[in-house]
């Protein structure tokens, strides 16, 4: 029992530390590279925009969105957060979304649509999660509805 507990504790410690390393790697562009750099990100964002408008859950939020403006902005943003050589120059997340009454379910619906696009464009699962991990904290600025 003591040995099992100690072994379990060590295993968890190792898992945690490797998980943390992967979580907090600074200025690492591996996700950017795994997405196929800016062109790869752009391809996913084009697909994403179409699906966002088509999906019954996300469609209402994006029905009047301007494709020629939003796709390049999203591309710049994901390029930047994934460690690529870009600078997102669009509006900050908070003010843009503050009047949109977005709940956690809406936010997750957008994540699911993004997952569809990433699958469609062949982004590997680990690179999908690498990007999602950098986008997910934006929920604090975007979700305004309890």
């Amino acid at each position, binding site marked *: *029992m003591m040995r*099992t*507990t100690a072994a*379990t504790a060590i*295993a*968890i410690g190792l*898992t*945690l530390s*490797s*998980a*943390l390393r*992967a*979580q907090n790697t600074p200025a690492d562009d591996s996700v950017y590279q795994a997405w196929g750099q800016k062109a790869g990100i752009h391809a996913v964002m084009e697909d994403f925009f179409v699906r966002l408008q088509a999906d019954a859950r996300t469609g209402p939020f994006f029905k009047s969105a301007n494709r020629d403006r939003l796709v390049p902005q999203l591309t710049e943003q994901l390029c930047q957060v994934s460690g690529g050589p870009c600078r997102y120059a669009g509006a900050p997340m908070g003010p843009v979304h503050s009047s949109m009454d977005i*709940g*956690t*379910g*809406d*936010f*997750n*619906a957008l*994540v*699911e649509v993004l*997952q569809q696009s990433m699958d469609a464009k062949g982004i590997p*699962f*680990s690179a999908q*999660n*690498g990007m*999602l*991990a*950098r986008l*997910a*904290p934006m*929920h604090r600025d975007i*979700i305004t*509805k*309890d």
Partner: protein
Amino acid sequence: MKRSPYRPMPLALICAGLLACSLTARADRGKLLLTGGTSSIDGAAGGGLTPWAVTGSYATDGETGGTAFVTGAKTQHYSLAAYGAAVGFKDRVEVSIARQDFDAKNNLAPLGLSNLRLKQDIVGVKVRVTGDAVLDSDTLTPQVAIGLQHKKTDAGALGPTLFGPLGADDSGTDLYVSATKLFLAPGILVNGTLRATKANQNGLLGFGGAQGDGYKLQPEVSVAKLLSKHLAIGAEYRAKPDNLHQSVLGAGALKEDDWFDLFVAWAPTKDISITAAYVALGKIAPAVQPRRQTGAYLSAQIAF
């Protein structure tokens, strides 16, 4: 020592009620795939053997959702069936019910207890206290929940001995705190649960014993790795007290071991998930069955 007669919970009725109140609500399934956990044998959302801090069902903020499950486990000499349901409110509160039916087969025949069945009903409540296990991917803060599970045991023909000379109670309440964190980038989920319990073999052999009747703090740990949106593999460890080690049946006759499992969980859609596992349950009543019990676990959960 309580000897209140066993009253079977009208489980079907409660299930029907849960279904009805869940179906009248909107189809509320705003959580991401698999992030409501599977159904543990005690009914709470989590892993197979231990609750997690996640709230059952796919209901997120402002939503109500439900799950129902059926689970079977089979080792060399015993089998366990469990079924139940849970409702999640606003990703905040979870209410669950479960029934377990343990088949001791003829292992206790030397004691005159052929085909012994041990049953228990469990009502659980869990409340998320803080954190978001999934979306707070830039902090170490886990999702934390506290919960309780009230259990009532029907030990059948073993009852007069178990609740008599062995000194166990036929009902008990577990209290626990769980912390769950998904490390999103590597796709690794870690849960730690600390349970205050008197239960013997999870309650199937009653609560407490002649040698001691106090609560004991027991750690439970789960680690899982997401292989895809639909598929997770992992391991669990659950420590258990050993209240019946010293008993009128002799030292070690009812010695209890910790539990361990290796699992794979698959959710093709939000409607259903299937969990299969290898379980190692240690010795169960070693005086009559000295062999360590290992075997298979299979669970199906539907979500609505």
